[in-house]
């Protein structure tokens, strides 16, 4: 379970301090997919990076399975699998070697790593390129390997930021199936995406963020009926102000 309470975060810039997250409170429970939706610059990635211990909250707290991300960073990192669209694997090691490396870093036994590699290779359909160097893979293949690496230690909480951004249609299905399977096995999945159709298909509950604030949160079907809109896209545009003049 991931619990975010009154999270506030600002960054120091040349022009002064910029409040990126004004106040966000939400909870993602075990056995559900929680979708964080919002336009670019809304604060989604900052929120996810805070959960992943890469950033510290200015105020408020973030707990992962009851552990504080600031004071218990290593325990939190042990229980999360985190991947953003900006994170890329690189180098000349093969996918198998990369999985072995991250498995060892997570103190997994060689037999566990081997078993996990087999499972992930099958789950993400990586059989054709598992022994190929990362440097020689397409961006879609690399993204699949990065996904596999982020969850090699079978974390209880999975945090994906735009996980399908560079994947083709077939690969998107592979990832979607994996997310559903993770949810069904009782894991807590937090997903950030700008593909609203994908969010509607995958997420049990969503939170829409704009300008560092949570505009609404709840189960997808409940939100749709509450706002009397047919789909997530209509709901999104009814809540998030669009500034056509700036285009």
């Amino acid at each position, binding site marked *: 379970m991931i619990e975010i309470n009154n999270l506030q975060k600002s*960054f120091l810039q040349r022009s002064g301090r910029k409040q990126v997250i004004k106040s966000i409170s939400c909870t993602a429970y075990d056995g559900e997919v929680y979708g964080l939706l919002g336009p670019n610059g809304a604060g989604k990635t900052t929120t996810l990076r805070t959960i992943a211990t890469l950033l510290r909250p200015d105020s408020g707290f973030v707990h992962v399975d009851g552990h504080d991300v600031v004071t218990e960073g290593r325990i939190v*990192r042990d229980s999360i699998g985190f991947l*953003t669209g900006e994170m890329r694997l690189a180098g*000349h090691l093969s996918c198998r070697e990369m999985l072995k490396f*991250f498995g*060892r*870093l997570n103190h997994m036994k060689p037999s566990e790593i081997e078993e996990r590699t087999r499972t992930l290779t099958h789950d993400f359909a990586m059989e054709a390129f598992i022994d190929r160097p990362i440097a020689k893979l397409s961006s879609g293949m690399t993204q699949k390997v990065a996904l596999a690496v982020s969850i090699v*230690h079978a974390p209880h909480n999975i945090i994906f930021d735009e996980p399908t951004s560079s994947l083709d249609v077939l690969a998107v299905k592979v990832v979607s199936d994996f997310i559903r399977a993770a949810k069904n096995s009782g894991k807590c999945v937090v997903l950030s995406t700008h593909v609203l159709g994908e969010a509607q298909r995958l997420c049990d509950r969503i939170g829409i963020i704009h300008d560092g604030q949570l505009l609404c949160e709840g189960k997808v079907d409940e939100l749709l009926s509450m706002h009397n809109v047919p789909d997530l896209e209509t709901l999104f545009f009814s809540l998030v102000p669009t500034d056509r003049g700036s285009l």
Partner: protein
Amino acid sequence: MSDAIIIFQKEVKNFFKDRRTLFSTFLLPLFIIPILFIGMGSVLQFLEADAQSTTYAIAIEGNNDQRFLDCIDEQLSYRLTSRDEADIIITFPPGYVQGIHAQVVITYDSSSQKNQYAHQQVIIAIQIYQELLAENLLELHGLSLASLLTLTTSSVDVASEVAQSGGTFLAMLVPYFLLIFLFSGSINAGLDTTCGEKERGSLAILLVNQVSRTSIAWGKILYVSVVAICSAGATFLGFVLSLLVPSGAAFMFPAELSGASLSGISLLIMVAVLSTVALFTGSVVALLGSLAKSVKEGGTYVMPLYMIVVLIGVTTMYMDPTSNGVFYFIPIVNTIFVMKEVLMGMITPWHVVVTICANIAIAGVCAYGVAQLFNSEKILQTV
């Protein structure tokens, strides 16, 4: 520390799979040194042989003494010619008579290497001719030049056997080359594994794992240090190779260098100080690389330090090892002086100990700095 070893092993494995980096880090220094020395030696050898075999056009004015012509003939091959066609003009003053004081003017073109050689040979010829004239004058008074020269000199070299067998020459060049390649080796690897990984987005994947940031820092520093020491090792091998190859390289080195050798303990000290200075350069480059957002930015941070290393290498090249203890607390400087001591056979144990301790201590401080940077939000924002 086991996590640091895992990261180190992964980095090394990745490194050895990258042929281009492997070439520039190991093969290039291994072959560039012999190619450099053999090439330069061969060119110099060729130039000297060419200068010696050339027949020079010489014009001699104001003295047609056959003995003078014989003196010149002993020094270089020449043909007499007119002033207009001459490479070198030797002018004696008008009315010159053998045995009187006279100003001899040698006119030559110094922009030509061959003419410079001929000029030197003519000066020697004039010196011999002058001695010949002096001998003749003394004979008229029943004396000989040898009887006037009452003092002879002989020298006893008390330098160590190692220093005499080319150690001094090695102490001048080897530390400089080793440090330059050690530092350049650590720059490539250090920037690639820090800001290079940031740029590619692969550092964040490492930072969100449960491994401690200190382990990440040490793993990367160890890797950079090993690459640097291997780069320096390849340079040293290249140097040895250029000594062994029977070619133009021998022309560049003093003859006594062929007898140069390092004892086991000397080699051990060299490896120890180089390993610790590699740890130092690795940690400094990793620290600067971690501060940068991109390899380009990292390069601008590291380059001034590289220039300082080059400057230290050049300024200490002709310096003798110092007994001033302060220098042995300063990384790079201490390593150069200890290597000089080793190569000249004048090892001072406490200099070695201070150097090793100082290098490790400062590397430790830098490693702590890298770990702090990996914990710093300002840096984490950029991964």
